[in-house]
């Protein structure tokens, strides 16, 4: 090629061209702030939704793992067992090698709790005496915290003469885990669908962009622009949409976390827990923005490979 500039300047101008084109694409987006913002916002919302769900699930998972360490066994004593006998039993059990702690819930406290939780407080007034038994809540040592060991402990405790019923509060934990698994799956399904939606949104936006710049594409082809050269600005536009959408999604997530934090903290205090919402963290934030950029790039690639061929000079 007689007219080609020499190699070294070609290479540096290749990167120069990328930089120039990426900035030019950003400039185009900046020139139409409202249209850009709306497209980016749609992308951001589509991304923020699964991210928020993920955070919620992640937090529930953390919360339940706290509970998991404290599987409880409730010992409902016979109603004729008095406080002294119960206390003795408590002290005895606390020395048991598999037991960490035993909580004592006497009849009055049990009644109070029952009133609070059940809402039958008024009905209970009509009873002449407290029908509730004394309850000992046994917290096994964490080393014992395996299903079969706990079960044998429950059996052992159930044999005690004072105990009417020994109940392992573990069923609901299992149920919660199954539920979390289902929720986890659904988040993946939702995320996949929304990712496809993002691809379509970006693809359509780029398609319109291509239509608007038809003349420029035709002229560029006529004066010898390669397909890669013509593709480049559109790919960068898609990338920028992805990047802006990703950052907006992060902001949305942040805001929703802040909105949720106070009520959740209050709730946690009611349960005497120091639980606090944990956010995305640095790595996941980076991942979110990277995924968003990738979606932008893929979406624009789909549009470009589909529509640029249709535009040929005539």
């Amino acid at each position, binding site marked *: *090629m*007689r*007219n*080609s*500039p020499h190699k070294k*300047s*070609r290479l*540096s*101008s*290749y990167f*120069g*061209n990328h930089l120039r084109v990426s900035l030019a694409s950003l400039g185009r987006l900046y020139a139409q702030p409202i249209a850009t913002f709306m497209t980016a916002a749609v992308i951001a919302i589509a991304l923020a939704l699964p991210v928020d769900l993920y955070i919620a699930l992640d937090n529930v998972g953390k919360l339940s793992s706290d509970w998991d360490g404290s599987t409880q066994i409730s010992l409902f004593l016979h109603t004729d067992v008095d406080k002294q006998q119960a206390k003795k039993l408590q002290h005895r059990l606390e020395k048991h090698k598999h037991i960490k702690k035993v909580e004592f819930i006497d009849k009055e406290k049990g009644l109070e709790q029952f009133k609070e939780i059940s809402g039958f407080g008024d009905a209970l007034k009509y009873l002449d005496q407290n029908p509730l038994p004394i309850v000992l809540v046994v917290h096994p040592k964490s080393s014992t915290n395996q299903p079969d060991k706990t079960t044998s402990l429950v059996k052992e405790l159930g044999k005690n003469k004072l105990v009417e019923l020994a109940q392992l509060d573990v069923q609901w934990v299992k149920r919660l885990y199954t539920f979390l698994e289902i929720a986890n799956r659904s988040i993946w399904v939702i995320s996949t669908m929304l990712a496809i939606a993002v691809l379509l949104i970006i693809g359509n936006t780029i398609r319109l962009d291509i239509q608007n710049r038809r*003349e*420029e594409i*035709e*002229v*560029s*082809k*006529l*004066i*010898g*622009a*390669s*397909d890669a*050269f013509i593709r480049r600005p559109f790919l960068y536009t898609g990338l920028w949409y992805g990047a802006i959408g990703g950052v907006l999604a992060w902001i949305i997530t942040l805001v929703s976390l802040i909105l949720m934090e106070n009520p959740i903290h209050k709730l946690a205090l009611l349960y005497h827990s120091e639980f606090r919402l944990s956010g995305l963290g640095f790595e996941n934030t980076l991942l979110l923005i990277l995924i968003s950029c990738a979606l932008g790039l893929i979406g624009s690639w789909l549009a470009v490979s589909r529509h640029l061929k249709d535009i*040929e*000079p*005539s």
Partner: protein
Amino acid sequence: MIHFDNVCKRYPGGHDALNRVNLRLPKGQMAFLTGHSGAGKSTLLKLIAMIERPTRGQIFLDGVNLNNIGNRKIPYIRRNIGIIFQNHHLLYDRPVFDNVAMPLIIQGYRRQEIHKRVRAALNQVGLLSKEKSDPITLSGGEQQRVGIARAIVHKPLLLLADEPTGNLDPGLSEEIMQLFARFNQVGTTVLIASHDLDLIKQMGSPMISLQDGKVAHNGLPFTVNDANVPAR
């Protein structure tokens, strides 16, 4: 430079735009292509610029058989050609300078080089003072000259012009043609499609006239039946 060997072009629908055309335009030659509209002038230029492909026959450009050029290689063929249109195809969203710089940016020239060459090209068409203007603010003749500057800024081997003076008054038309003659003098091969016979005669360059897709008259110095293989 350009060699047409028994070239036929039939458009979908069965219209024969070119029928067994043989042509040989030597390097450094300037020539005019005439004929009434529909005679195949534009088709012939489009075949050279690879906007269309021939149905039959072979076209050689600077010794390269265009039939052997895949679609991906077309841009590199076009970089050796400067194309000028009747409606000049300027982009109105950017100033004159950026319009003219397009071929250089596409080919990856450096900034300083682009600056130098664009200004030189604009100087040659007499529009250096308008480099920052928007094309829409220029007159028709000036816009056409910007189009010419864009076509010659990368110093192509071949200049193709399709009715470059179609919309201009006689004075401006002559000015444009003189411009082409000047590029030809420095070695560029020039092929201009035009129906302005008076102006063509005035220019004194050879004329090829097409009629119904066939060469009706060939004023080129080399004969059509010259059976030489194309120069490599």
